[in-house]
């Protein structure tokens, strides 16, 4: 079997002929950038073959001399030496820290998922001689009436600890579905238990530290991206490699979370031992993978996951390094394609408490939509893909410093990036602006096709594309471009979202106009231009004050649950109340989708403000 050696790392792996270099690298655990999951679209996986013969058609097509696409280049008969240029190695492992409003000094408040109470216990005597544990529980019940469970580890030390604390002890308890668990008993420490809330997105992972005066959100790419941009590719990986696939993916996400926690602790100057809980949100597949649950039946008819309602587990069970006596909570999901991220979103936005129906649209990779009010909650998944998170596009990136986040026209096209840094790529809000501006300027027609000869439109290898920023201006030394395939992806993604919302509304006998508020959630950038979102038909043409950008509601929901156990129950209620609609089999979906794959929409009368602006 040929041996492939990856340079400069110097890692070797045996690979069957016919294996792509990308797959070989995965087997060797050498990260290679691949934003399209190995479909030959993103051209991020470029490598140089230093020695040996390869097969396939990974070269040419506009690549520099000697460069090959790792995903399209196949191992042949000979041993290989493959060099990874710097930009290919730059699978962004870097963690971005962002400041947020700091929590108050007495944070977290009473009633959090994990909290410490200082209790005075009556010392035992001959009349009152119940056991130590009963004594503790009796006292705890006065504080908060519940079932209490004392794990053996805590029990062992209990007599010593209580006496050592002279019957005035700090008791750290967690909320569990069946009651409460006692995590620690000891001398009063005057230190609250800290927590970390995590949102595992298919594309990016975010975490926030819940500690006094902490004001940090850390984020990074989900390293699983190297196995494909969407949940399906990840599931397929588990399926293909039954033995190692699922553990490998779990490992990656746990490592990512570890790095995020490290960055947060570092920024705040907090010890790992002080973190007592992890509260995790994310879509159903991500949660499955995080827990190491085999996700294969999620993608197969009738689309059934292993578990949606999950009991808390011990940190060591998932392999996260926080206080070992702490707890890991996962928010409840609704179905295989509507996950805890949506439950969290509904919680965070109060969708289920409203008098009048509103909608929550999560512009993540799955593109879930929830509609409801206090009377009902329905949801569906649009399978929109990661286009608005920058996935699968030639110059796509997540919202990070240097990402083009807004675009406008002043005769010629102008743009600005996050942090005003040299452009590294385009993020979701940048794409929304870019599409809207190009249509408005008639640089592309309403199907999204570039107009030959329009300013900025160039032809490469028979394809038209638009150059937003030439290589000289860009950070990576590559043109920042929008290709025809990118546009198709984006149009399909926005079409899927709009169509899914329309079908969901229709099955309720409602219309977009009946919604009080349309909340757009997701991590695609902070500078959402509502008019542009309507101009491309991502959002319906309703009065702009009804559109609200609500940010990462999945993380917000996780924070809310962590800081207030009442929300833990509420999230479960939400999941139970939610009705899931399967759209892939809905007879009208295809029709609505086709009509929405146009800019803004085939039914122009549904977008009067856009038509008026174009006249």
């Amino acid at each position, binding site marked *: 079997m040929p041996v492939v050696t990856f340079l400069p790392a110097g890692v070797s792996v045996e690979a069957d002929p016919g294996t792509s270099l990308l797959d070989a690298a995965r087997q060797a655990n050498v990260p290679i950038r691949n934003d399209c999951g190995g479909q030959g679209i993103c051209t991020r996986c470029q490598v140089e073959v230093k020695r040996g013969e390869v097969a396939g058609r990974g070269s040419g097509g506009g690549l520099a001399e000697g460069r090959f696409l790792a995903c399209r280049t196949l191992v042949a008969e000979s041993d290989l030496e493959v060099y990874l240029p710097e930009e290919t190695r730059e699978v962004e492992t870097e963690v971005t820290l962002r400041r947020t409003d700091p929590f108050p000094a007495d944070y977290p408040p009473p009633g959090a998922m994990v909290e410490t109470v200082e209790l005075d216990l009556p010392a035992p005597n001959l009349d009152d001689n119940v056991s130590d544990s009963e004594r503790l529980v009796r006292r705890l019940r006065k504080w908060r009436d519940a079932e209490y469970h004392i794990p053996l580890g805590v029990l062992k030390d209990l007599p010593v600890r209580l006496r050592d604390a002279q019957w005035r002890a700090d008791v750290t308890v967690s909320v569990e579905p069946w009651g409460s668990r006692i995590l620690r008993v000891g001398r009063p420490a005057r230190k609250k238990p800290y927590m970390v809330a995590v949102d595992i997105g298919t594309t990016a992972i975010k975490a926030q530290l819940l500690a006094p005066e902490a004001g940090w959100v850390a984020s990074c790419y989900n390293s699983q991206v190297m196995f494909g941009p969407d949940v399906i590719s990840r599931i397929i990986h588990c399926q293909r490699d039954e033995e190692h696939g699922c553990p490998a993916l779990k490992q990656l996400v746990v490592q990512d979370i570890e790095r995020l926690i490290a960055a947060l602790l570092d920024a705040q100057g907090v010890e790992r031992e002080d973190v007592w809980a992890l509260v995790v949100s994310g879509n159903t597949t991500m949660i499955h993978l995080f827990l190491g649950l085999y996700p294969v039946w999620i993608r197969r008819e009738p689309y059934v996951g292993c578990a949606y309602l999950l009991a808390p587990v011990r940190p060591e069970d998932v392999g996260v390094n926080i206080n070992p006596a702490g707890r890991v909570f996962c928010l409840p999901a609704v179905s295989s394609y509507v996950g805890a991220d949506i439950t969290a979103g509904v919680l965070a936005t109060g969708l289920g408490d409203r008098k009048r129906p509103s909608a929550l649209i999560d512009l993540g990779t799955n593109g879930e939509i929830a509609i409801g009010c206090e009377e009902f909650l329905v949801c569906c998944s649009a399978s929109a893909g990661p286009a608005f998170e920058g996935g699968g596009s030639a110059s796509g990136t997540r919202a990070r410093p240097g990402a083009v986040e807004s675009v406008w026209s002043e005769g010629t096209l102008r743009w600005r990036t996050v942090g005003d840094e040299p452009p590294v790529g385009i993020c979701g809000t940048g794409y929304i602006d870019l599409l809207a501006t190009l249509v408005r300027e008639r640089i592309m027609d309403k199907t999204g096709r570039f107009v030959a000869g329009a300013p900025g439109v160039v032809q490469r290898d028979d394809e038209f594309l638009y150059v937003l920023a030439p290589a000289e201006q860009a950070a990576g030394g590559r043109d920042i471009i929008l290709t025809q395939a990118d546009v198709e992806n984006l149009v399909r993604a926005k079409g899927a979202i709009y169509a899914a919302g329309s079908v969901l509304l229709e099955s309720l006998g409602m219309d977009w106009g009946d919604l009080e508020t349309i909340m757009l959630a997701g991590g695609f950038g902070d500078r959402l231009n509502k008019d542009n979102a309507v101009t491309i038909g991502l959002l319906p043409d309703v009065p702009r004050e009804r559109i609200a950008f609500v940010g990462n509601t999945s993380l917000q929901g996780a924070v809310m649950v962590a800081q207030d156990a009442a929300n833990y129950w509420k999230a479960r209620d939400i999941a139970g109340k939610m009705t899931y609609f399967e759209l892939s089999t809905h007879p009208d979906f295809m029709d609505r989708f086709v009509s929405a794959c146009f800019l803004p929409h*085939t039914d122009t009368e549904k977008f009067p403000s856009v038509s008026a602006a174009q006249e």
Partner: protein
Amino acid sequence: MPVPDVSERLSGAINEVTIGATEEQGGSRTRTVTIGGETSFPMLSFEGRYPHPPAFALQITAADVDDWHAEAKKHVADVAGDLEKWAGKCEEWGADLICLDLAAAHPDSGGRSPEQCADDVKRVLGASGLPLVVWGTDTDEVDNNILPKCTQAAAGENCLFGTAKELNYRTLAASCLADSHKIIAEAPSDINLSKQLHILLKDVGVNLQDIIMHPTTGALGFGMVYIYTTIERGRIAGLSGDTLMQQPVVVNIGKEIGRVKEAVSPEEESPQWGKVQVRAPLWEAATAVGYVEAGAELLVLRNPEALQQAKTALEALWPKPPESA
């Protein structure tokens, strides 16, 4: 309780589109054909108008007719290869329009040059006074090469040129605008795609009133019913006021009949299906009548017998407006 009045007054009407220009109108046609103008579903005279009978075009081509099925070929055998004669025949056979199919421009079918195609157009216009439909090939590059020359050659004649598609509409739209022709907008059996194309055409300056739509065509038993339903859906939208669906509909039936075994399989092979000389034209006529039922107004056929049969059937259906009765 009396029988309720169920007639529906719809808010929209289908565009009236005229093809051809007489001498006074700057052309050389001996007559023009107008289609469209309906205010109800086909033939429902109790609730709306259907002012013009469905129009029939017969297809002629400079390409060889080897791939025509026998029952259609037998009628044109002695005129194939001579467009002028063939055009004259079409008039005799009772066609309302002539449809010149430019298949011969495709490199695999002879690759007639743009100039030759333009000349074909001229010769057909010279040989017959009927309004002309000119139908391009199935290949964009070829179309973009030949159609501008053809529209020019027919300038002033107010012909109907096709087809503009989502991926290739600019060239034909510009030529039709320049030479004042009507245009066929072709979108594969989907009203959304069809509307999108109309918006695109409008955006490059084509008047929505100058468009005839072609939702593509399938024969009875071979795809017809999807298109039938697409036409019905479009018609509902158009009659309800959607200006992007008020375009009359053309279907190009003649080409499709050969795909249907039941229609053309010779008796020796399929005795259980009866006489092929009955089946083949009848199938073409039945397909045409079906499409009219859905809403189509312009039907392109190959077989003159089918033309006669369909016309006769539609006479029994079409409610002549009082003035022409």
